[in-house]
């Protein structure tokens, strides 16, 4: 049975995209010192949305100086309660302008409006609201009686949840009394630049938040700037390791949120329909551009056939297409480069002998698209079982005993997330204990909350973001 839906596009009239963007330094939009402009496009139709600035080392230096100045003269002198009030203001403005942010995020990133509207933007506002309340209670955060801010924090965020990752970074940094220089991802700078306007509307003191757009070179200039006391990075494990090496010999503190290859384990007694929904949400949410995606489905052998049939049926209901259509489930792949990477890894699945399946679906001609896909017959040694694909591609692996499931789940250098599907409470808790991962979703998947710490074991990173535990990333405690 095929359901036909009339197009239901969200209007873009609510956003006002400028043709060119400067950098946001010391409370003002200022032109770069020597930096060129580069285009940011809508990956769903390859149309250029705007030109933004390639921040230079000189620009980074200017931003760090502004942040240092703001830290010394204003922000570190404000009582926590006042810092909190600014964060509450920001949270409220994000709520007021939520639809504008949701549309802009969908256009710049390619993700469905349903997700930006219902997940990214509300959660970003919630992060500011949550951390606002911490600003005057830091002595109760379990880090000693008088925890101290680091000073100026350099933050580098990825393109998969642009505004939400900005919120995960900026909200705790400001609440704990630090000032910030943030570099958004090269392909998704627009909501960060719109956030700069929010800072202006909130009358945040100049220089407390600085946004410098650019590519990896800009990020590197930020990481290596001697005026930065702490670095927070979300991105690939490869770059994370580079940063870890580059801070050696300095006093810079570092937290990292890196890659993952999450195992979603389905035991034979799992509630099958809920499980299918959880698998779909685990890997096809946000086009699979999720570091904690449930990209390895570990299913107990005796229910595999039934589960795969149900999964196929459910996957054929996934609506791929215009991200701004309110009925769209799976949007565009964020960039040509990412699409190439997904295609290459999927190809390796074919050549290594796994079996590929996708539902029939018509992909738009323009833009970057990849259908929801899974591979069966995957073995532990296959690249698609080991490497992070960061796309809508699921690798299905079977197991016979719970111990085998745990062994396979933990057989990865990553340790960010895992899922457990079973009706048996004791098995949930046993599995959760055994799994080497920072976030475990039992009979659910891909849930996020500002009060819930997020972060990985092993090569998935250092430290946590969110909750009381996340504050430790931005404070120097007494021993």
């Amino acid at each position: 049975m095929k359901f036909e839906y009339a197009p239901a596009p969200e209007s873009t009239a609510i956003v006002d995209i400028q043709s060119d963007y400067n950098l946001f330094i010391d409370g003002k939009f200022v032109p770069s010192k020597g930096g060129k402009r580069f285009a940011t496009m809508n990956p769903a139709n390859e149309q250029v949305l705007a030109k933004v600035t390639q921040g230079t080392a000189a620009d980074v230096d200017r931003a760090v100086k502004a942040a240092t100045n703001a830290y010394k003269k204003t922000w570190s002198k404000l009582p926590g309660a006042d810092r909190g009030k600014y964060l509450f203001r920001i949270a409220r403005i994000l709520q007021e302008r939520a639809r504008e942010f949701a549309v802009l995020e969908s256009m710049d990133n390619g993700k469905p409006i349903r997700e930006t509207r219902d997940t990214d933007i509300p959660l970003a506002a919630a992060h500011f609201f949550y951390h606002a309340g911490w600003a005057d209670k830091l002595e109760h955060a379990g880090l000693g009686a008088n925890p101290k801010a680091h000073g100026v924090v350099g933050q580098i965020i990825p393109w998969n949840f642009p505004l939400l990752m900005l919120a995960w970074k900026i909200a705790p940094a400001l609440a704990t009394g630090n000032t910030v220089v943030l570099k958004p991802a090269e392909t998704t700078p627009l909501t960060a630049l719109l956030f700069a306007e929010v800072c202006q509307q909130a009358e945040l003191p100049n220089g407390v938040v600085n946004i410098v757009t650019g590519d990896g070179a800009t990020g590197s200039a930020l990481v290596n700037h001697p005026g930065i006391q702490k670095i927070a990075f979300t991105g690939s494990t490869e770059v994370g390791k580079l940063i870890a090496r580059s801070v050696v010999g300095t006093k810079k503190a570092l937290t990292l949120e890196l890659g993952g290859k999450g195992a979603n384990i389905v035991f034979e007694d799992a509630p099958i329909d809920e499980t299918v929904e959880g698998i779909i949400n685990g890997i096809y949410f946000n086009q699979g551009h999720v570091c904690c995606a449930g990209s390895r489905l570990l299913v107990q052998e005796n229910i595999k056939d039934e589960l795969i049939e149900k999964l196929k049926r459910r996957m054929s209901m996934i609506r791929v297409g215009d991200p701004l259509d309110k009925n769209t489930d799976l949007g565009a792949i964020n960039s040509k480069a990412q699409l190439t990477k997904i295609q290459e890894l999927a190809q390796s699945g074919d050549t290594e002998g796994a079996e590929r399946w996708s539902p029939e679906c018509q992909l738009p001609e323009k833009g970057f698209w990849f259908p929801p896909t899974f591979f069966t017959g995957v073995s532990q040694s296959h690249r698609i079982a080991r490497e992070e694909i960061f796309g809508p591609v699921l690798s299905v692996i079977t197991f016979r005993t719970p111990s085998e499931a745990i062994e396979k789940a933990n057989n990865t250098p990553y340790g960010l997330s895992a899922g457990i599907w079973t009706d048996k409470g004791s098995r949930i808790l046993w599995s959760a204990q055994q799994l080497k991962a920072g976030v475990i979703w039992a009979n659910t998947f891909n849930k996020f909350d500002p009060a819930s710490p997020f972060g990985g074991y092993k090569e998935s990173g250092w430290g946590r973001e969110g909750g009381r535990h996340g504050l430790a990333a931005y404070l120097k405690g007494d021993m």
Partner: protein
Amino acid sequence: MRIDVKKTYKLFIGGQFPRSESGRSYELFDSKGNFLANPALASRKDLRDAVVAARNISDKWSSATAFNRSQILYRVAEVMEGRKDQFIAEIIAQEGVTKAQALKQVNEAIDLWVWYAGWCDKIASVYGGTNPVSGSFYNFTTPENLGVVASFISDQSSLTSIVHAVAPILAGGNTLVAVAHEDYPLSAITLSEVIATSDVPGGVVNILTGKAKEIAPWVGSHMDIDGVDGSGLDSTTYDALRKDGADNLKRINRFDEVKSPQRILAYMEHKTVWHPIGI
């Protein structure tokens, strides 16, 4: 006059006391230049054997109940108390301090074990917790062991320094390989004899003696070590180890010699679990 029976100072790996696989040893002298002992000069292979021993027992030690670990750490204190004289004599020999100063150090070391023993079954309730997420979910965070930790012991003192390093790592459910300070192998190996007779499972604590600088590069690049305490390394060696350690993102720290729950938490990971609430 009776001829003393002198003690051979060997390594402590997997609950056994082997000589270095390399067959090497080094001469140790007291503060007045008199010969003390020929402690083993541990090699890369010794380190690798120690890591294998630590990894093999990791699951057993981390899944022991916190109350059980607590009793075992307290047992170490009990057994130390009975061997005070030996510890005092070795501290005097290595550091050249007075008997009163040596006694003070031994007492402090024993009390450190007692302090960390008590933390084993409190750390998760003080530093874990439930998180009030927005939605119908039960969500809790709990610290758990990191895995295998390598510790380079500092030279601040011959006995308390190693207890400052070892006790919190054990309290957090980790297993470890400690590299004793080159000048203070006697206290370290005597401590290992205490540990060997205190119900600590073999392999949970492994102690190497020798040159930290020689062993550090092998620790940095070892892919089955999860964390490193570099307190006993000079800055150049420590920085090189941090670079190598980035290959598997080891958790690498240095500490001031203070007793703190933060030293336990430095080698723990926070795990957060979600489950829906419903009928």
